[in-house]
């Protein structure tokens, strides 16, 4: 059974990290990240052509995490594969021993490094969750019996700070209805909004793992606000990083504060260290969440 699932169901506060597969076949950097983050985390997300930019597949890199003795969260986007390829990769993932699955829509190709690519989106993330839930019950999306089904711990994404909240909440509840058992959120900056999400989603039994993004430099702050989502990082936090004499140190201190606060309202934290893998151990230790 998935250790992540086991920990969450026992009520343990979990820590998940994130690794990105390489653009190429050299796994050295990936293995280094896994070696640093693996021992600190219950499970590691393995991204799937993140930002619609080309990388080695999440399937292969998730297997590397497993081979190194850690637990991966296999990410699947709906952007690059149609329903045949998605189902076939899910079956493959299960035979590889990948037990955690995070299903997301995927960024649009026009924002990535192959802007001329066709975005597939044959299924959306809610529909793919339902397909995976069906596979867990031993059938494909045509209700045909599989010669051996899957047993994924199914996850999805939610953005607790995006408004209008009623639309977000409705979408999140539909994901739960479709089979999501845990959520990982985008980076949380507004604790009140996260608490609102937790209050409304928890009754469904779904677990909430709150995102912490290491704002390691003013450049990252600008990138998130300009390229990722509106003005997601509040003025006060942005200013704190921008005015700091040592922005990296300030971002670690901020992450520690955030993790400490989230301990009371979330089921776990998902740390996105943006390459500063070494900081994760300190964040966990100083926040007292380990």
């Amino acid at each position, binding site marked *: 059974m998935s250790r992540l699932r086991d920990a969450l169901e026992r009520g343990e506060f979990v820590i998940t990290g994130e690794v990105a597969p390489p653009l190429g076949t050299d796994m050295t950097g990936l293995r280094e990240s896994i070696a640093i983050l693996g021992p600190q985390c219950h499970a590691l997300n393995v991204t799937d052509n993140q930002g619609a930019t080309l990388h080695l597949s999440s399937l292969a890199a998730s297997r590397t995490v497993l081979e190194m003795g850690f637990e991966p969260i296999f990410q699947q986007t709906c*952007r690059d594969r149609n*329903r045949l390829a998605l189902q076939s990769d899910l079956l493959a993932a299960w035979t590889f021993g990948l037990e955690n699955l995070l299903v*997301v*829509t*995927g*960024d*649009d190709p*026009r*924002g990535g490094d192959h802007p001329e690519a066709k*975005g597939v*989106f*044959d*299924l*959306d*993330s*809610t*529909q793919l969750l*339902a397909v995976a839930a069906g596979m867990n019950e031993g059938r494909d*999306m045509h209700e045909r019996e599989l010669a051996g089904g899957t047993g994924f711990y199914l996850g999805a*994404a939610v*953005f607790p700070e*995006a*408004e*209008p909240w*009623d*639309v*977000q909440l*409705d*979408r999140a509840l*539909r994901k739960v*209805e*479709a089979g999501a058992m845990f959520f990982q959120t*985008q980076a949380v900056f507004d604790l009140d909004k996260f608490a609102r999400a937790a209050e409304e989603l928890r009754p469904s039994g779904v677990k909430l793992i709150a995102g912490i993004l290491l704002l390691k430099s003013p450049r990252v702050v600008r990138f998130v606000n300009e390229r*990722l*989502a*509106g003005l*997601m990082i509040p003025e006060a936090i942005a200013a704190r990083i921008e005015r700091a004499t040592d922005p990296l140190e300030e971002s670690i201190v901020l992450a520690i504060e955030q993790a400490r606060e989230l301990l009371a309202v979330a089921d776990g934290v998902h740390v996105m260290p943006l390459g500063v893998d070494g900081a994760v151990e300190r964040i966990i230790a100083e926040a007292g969440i380990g």
Partner: protein
Amino acid sequence: MIITRPRDWARVEANLEEIGARRVFIMGCGQCATVAKTGGEEEVLQAKAAIEQSGREVAGWTIGEVACHEGDTKLTARKHHDALETADAVLVLSCGAGVQTVADAVDKPVLPGLESVFLGNVVRHGVFEERCQMCGECVLDLTAGICPVTTCPKGLLNGPCGGMWEGMCEVLTDRECIHVLIRRRLSAQRRVASGSLAPKDFSKKLKPGSVNLRAGRKETGR
């Protein structure tokens, strides 16, 4: 309305060069391409000037009533038979459907002068927007008359995606998220969103489409 845009003229020139065309006949379209300001009289005359500027001759020009109408285009071709006979190539300023109709009707190399881009609503004169992709399986009854398949850049039936922020679309950042608009209109009409929408059935729209009313409404993909 089929919306077209001018094709890169260098490519048109290269096409003419490849087949060694010295004399060119130009055909526009009196319907969509005229409204889209890509294949009406003004644009045909601009093409004529450009062809002449490159040292080629224009054997003649015309604007058919509806380029994609086979009977109509055959008639137009017959009317201009003599001029077409002297031409080395025909340049068609219409959508791809019109280009193929002309290519069937005229025994000469036929070249596209436009790119076909979408089925467009005429928002107002000169302003066109894509609202329908002709998917063969309409969901507008469930989505308050707003098509997510076409107007969500990702074509998601269930949205919004994780990029929506303050109600705005992540991809086209100056536009509201279509899934927010759908929900708003549904609640304004006191209608309830009908749960998650099921995956689309793409077999409802198999290529190439055809409908034959004379054969008891025979269609492809059905």
